[in-house]
């Protein structure tokens, strides 16, 4: 009894209740990890000898950046599955990822700016990673805009899926070119500031926050997909059976 296989999960009929059962556990786990990580990062971890207490923004900034990338990868995976196998749930997955990814990216950019201001004196410095994140934000916004501009759901799903895949191929190229550009012009760097080695006392809260953000992401993803299912499968018989107590 290992639960539904991936095949069965691809059907909204099974996915919906399955996600519903998982959600309370994931939500609680995410909350615990995030509160623990944040508390540890704010109160327990020692101050950095170079940056003082401002480095604590890292416990938000780094997980947000990690999630902004992870979300795109998950979205690209869903896009690929949708284009190749036409599984509608994959399209719902991809659709859900775009605004979430944009939110994580925006959070990364703002916290990056707040982290950098006391160090650089300006609210924005064209640091390689922040600039890459900015381009990533544009990619997400493009996906959201494209889906919004197309009325027919079939075309909308397939067009955004193709765009997501074109984007995922280009992300390494864009990232490499921005790093390249940065070495030519040498503005300040957040990554250099974070130091080559992280103090172990700072590592634990960081990992807790990354784990917490990731579990949170999965939970929100599942919840949003359940909403999509309800909206799209309105007439489905299995839903009516769910309604009847």
């Amino acid at each position, binding site marked *: 009894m290992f639960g539904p296989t991936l095949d069965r999960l691809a059907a909204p009929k099974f996915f919906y209740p399955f996600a519903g059962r998982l959600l309370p556990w994931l939500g609680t786990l995410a909350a615990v990890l995030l509160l623990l990580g944040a508390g540890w990062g704010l109160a327990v971890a020692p101050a950095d000898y170079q940056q003082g207490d*401002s480095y604590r*923004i890292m416990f938000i900034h780094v997980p947000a950046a990690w999630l902004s990338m992870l979300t795109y990868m998950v979205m690209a995976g869903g896009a690929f599955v949708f284009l190749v196998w036409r599984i509608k749930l994959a399209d719902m997955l991809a659709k859900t990822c775009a605004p979430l990814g944009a939110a994580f990216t925006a959070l990364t950019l*703002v916290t990056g700016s*707040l982290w950098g*201001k006391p160090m650089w004196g300006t609210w924005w410095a064209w640091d390689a990673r922040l600039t890459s994140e900015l381009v990533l934000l544009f990619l997400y916004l493009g996906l959201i805009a494209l889906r919004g501009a197309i009325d027919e759901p079939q075309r909308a799903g397939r067009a955004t899926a193709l765009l997501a895949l074109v984007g995922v191929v280009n992300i390494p190229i864009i990232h490499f070119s921005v790093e390249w550009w940065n070495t030519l012009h040498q503005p300040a760097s957040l990554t250099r500031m974070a130091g080559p080695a992280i103090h172990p006392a700072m590592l634990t809260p960081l990992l807790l926050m990354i784990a917490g953000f990731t579990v949170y992401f999965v939970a929100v993803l599942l*919840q949003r997909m359940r909403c999509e299912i*309800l909206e799209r499968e309105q007439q489905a018989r299995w839903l*009516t059976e769910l*309604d009847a107590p």
Partner: protein
Amino acid sequence: MSEFLAMGGYGAYVWPSYALAALVLGLNAWLPWRRHRRLLRERQTRPET
């Protein structure tokens, strides 16, 4: 306690970061939850086809 809030002089940068994170995470969790409940309610009140 006030030392904790001051964050070594960087309080004005650290706390808004955490507050923003709480806002972003909170909104993204609350909105789908609310939407889900609304969708379920609409199913109840909609006349059966």
